[in-house]
């Protein structure tokens, strides 16, 4: 039997409608730092939450999770570590 345990980080990918100012406002409202747009993906932002465990086998719960209820937040995902190997 093969079981896979996910490792959750304290980084989130968020899709927010309304530009960077809106993203900044929502981030600070829920205690995140907005580290900017994710590469060239429009409306996707990199949020960081310093009061969440850097690595954890359970996904983060707390008042910051209510961010997903903001009307301008279209999608949010806590980032999971992916094992990648140099070839």
């Amino acid at each position, binding site marked *: 039997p093969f079981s896979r345990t996910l490792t959750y980080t304290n980084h989130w990918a968020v899709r927010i409608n309304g530009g960077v100012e809106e993203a900044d406002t929502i981030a600070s409202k829920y205690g995140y730092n907005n580290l900017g747009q994710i590469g060239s993906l429009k409306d996707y932002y990199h949020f960081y939450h310093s009061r969440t465990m850097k690595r954890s086998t359970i996904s983060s719960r707390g008042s910051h999770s209510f961010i997903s209820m903001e009307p301008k937040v279209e999608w949010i995902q806590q980032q999971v570590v992916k094992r990648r190997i140099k*070839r």
Partner: protein
Amino acid sequence: DFKPGAAQYPYFNDPKWPSMWYIHCNDDTHHCQSDMNIVGAWRRGYTGRNVVVTILDDGIERNHPDLQQNYDQMASFDVNGNDWDPMPRYDASNENKHGTRCAGEVAAVANNSHCTIGVAYNAKIGGVRMLDGDVTDMVEAKSLSLHPQHIDIYSASWGPDDDGKTVDGPASLARQAFENGIRMGRRGLGSIYVWASGNGGRSRDHCSCDGYTNSIYTISISSTAESGKKPWYLEECASTLATTYSSGESYDRKIITTDLRQRCTDSHTGTSASAPMAAGIIALALEANPNLSWRDVQHIIVRTSRSGHLNAPDWKTNAAGYRVSHLYGFGLMDAEAMVKEAERWKSVPPQHICVESPDKQSRTIRPEHVVRAVYKATGCSENLNHHVLYLEHIVVRVTIAHPRRGDLAIYLTSPSGTKSELLSNRLFDHSMEGFKSWEFMTTHSWGEKAVGDWVLEIHDSPSQLRNFKTPGKLKEFSLVLYGTSVHPYSSSYTPFDTPKVDRVRSSPVDEPSEGFQDEFTGSCDPECINGCDGLGPQHCIDCLHFFLKFKNNTRTCVPECPRGFYDDEKRRCKKCWSICENCVGSRSDQCISCKNGYHLNEETNVCVTNCPESFYLDKNGNTCRRCSENCRRCNGFQFCTDCKPGMSLQGTKCVFSCADGSYYNSQKRGCERCHFSCATCAGQGQESCTRCAPSFYMEDWRCVLSCSVGYFLDQPYENAEKTCRRCDPSCSTCIGHGERNCSTCPSGYNLEDGACVLGTVCKDATEESWAEGSFCVLVKKNSLCQRKVLQQLCCRTCSLKG
């Protein structure tokens, strides 16, 4: 044309040049089999100039002597550290050498007497540091979508574990980054992603289980040893497109490249030596024709790669005449053939995607049995926008439940009879997860026709005792056919003049160009398909490439959309926003270049008259680019002229401003206290004061309690700050500025009226205490001053009147 021969080979003074067998194959002692004709491409003048390549890895040693000159800051980023410096993290084991090694293969500088030469030695090279930390979907997406309008080629030599039991691929953000890249990167031509196919040979891994190398957006590169044999690490699969050389057995020669700590190495091995080599070759082709789209590049690779001396048990010729194998794809890349093709290449017709309706009939997979499912594909012939007649990639989306995934082998046979192995047994894969909508991909039917019966076979061969009461189940599968509705090389392509020796047409009936010619009628314009009702492109029934509609409601067929128009993917040219010159959509934020007087904002894709704050105008690309972090205004990426609040300008960089009595330490990234003698300072220590603490005085660049010897305390005006200023050079000590304010003189000088004059034995005759004084009075009284010796001895007394 270039002909092999030692006399014609160029000479480079880089010490490892003679050992670079994979670039020049002129060494008789080693019995060269075949090379990749890289020198041939160089001799045609292509060295990668104006092409930008980035290596997605663990960083790049940007100050390596072989990389420094070609290093491109705009093609680099540190995703792990979230800053612009991709320098690797150094440790005792040199763990982070991988990116620097890959970079050298692409663009090590030629003729600089150092180490090695890159395949595209004039290409710009960058590096993204993204593997030296937690890799997440977001980290991958950031890396894959870095500056897609600036970077041409992304080279990645990593992936999910090649342990023979992992099935993993790009998640939603990385997938989106790939899709955006091929759709909008390179101003709509599509970013080129080159991928190392996998190093799981010993673990019996299969690269179909790696969703990155298995993607249609990546050019999956495998390796061959010098001898043409399969290297020990090589995985096989149907998604591999082509091959370059890498290391093999101990008797095979090695690949040489740049190494960490400004060194050189011949230890770089595996498919990660091969992928950047392919990226370099593609850079040569892009220099030959910068208008190649991402699909043009794949077509050119398919057409020019050669099976040559490569040793594989499964070489076969598909129905379009291409030799292909699961080990090497279409074979060894040929740089010279690629640049020749690129020079005359015209873009292939738009890609059509035909998603055949899924077969949802559940089928039981019994041990030691084969499940065979036949699917009648139409190639979406009823839908003009999705019709696929000539194939490129074929994806099979499969959902299977199975008690032991590693026991499965999957095959797909095309209507023309080409059989691809989509998956072979994996000894170490004990997973019970099966496959959930996993996409297997094959390139082996490239150029064949799509319509007809496709056969999917699933073999279950138990490698160990299993509970046979729970057999596997094929729950659903569907075919996604990628290709074109017309022949890709029809009217636009001038065929290659010398046919490849290893191209064998299986049957003249299947010759694609013949099939294509049947579809044309006599005197219609070449831009027409399905006939016409008059001469000229405005009388076509249907267009080969694009429709262009005029205001008066007439329309014409055009080979490409003119300036100010974009292709809406239904092959219609639609108008861009009024101030866009080129665009990918009709909205104001879908511009890719702007009309005169406007500049493109690279982040919003909007045309603006003036660059906004924190952006500068890059005149070459007529683009507003973002200044480096912390700049409010700048003249270039790292040339700040004004800083954001809380920062101050030091030279051309903005650094954090600290409170009085402290300074910004850039290494520790924080403010630190100045020396106690400073009120303000620029750095650590007494000598970095910019103003002094109370009761201290500034003396040169340090603050002192009292002025040193040779300095005097100066206060230029009332209430001004007192400083220690250096005395006149003629004084030892002084009471003020200038040569007349000396208070003591250096030895050999005499103080006369505050000035130091060259001392002789002559002393002031007026100083009665000195014996010489009364002597001189006597000299003068006796009129002996005329005598030269006495005049010198009593100079002052003698010169006084009276």
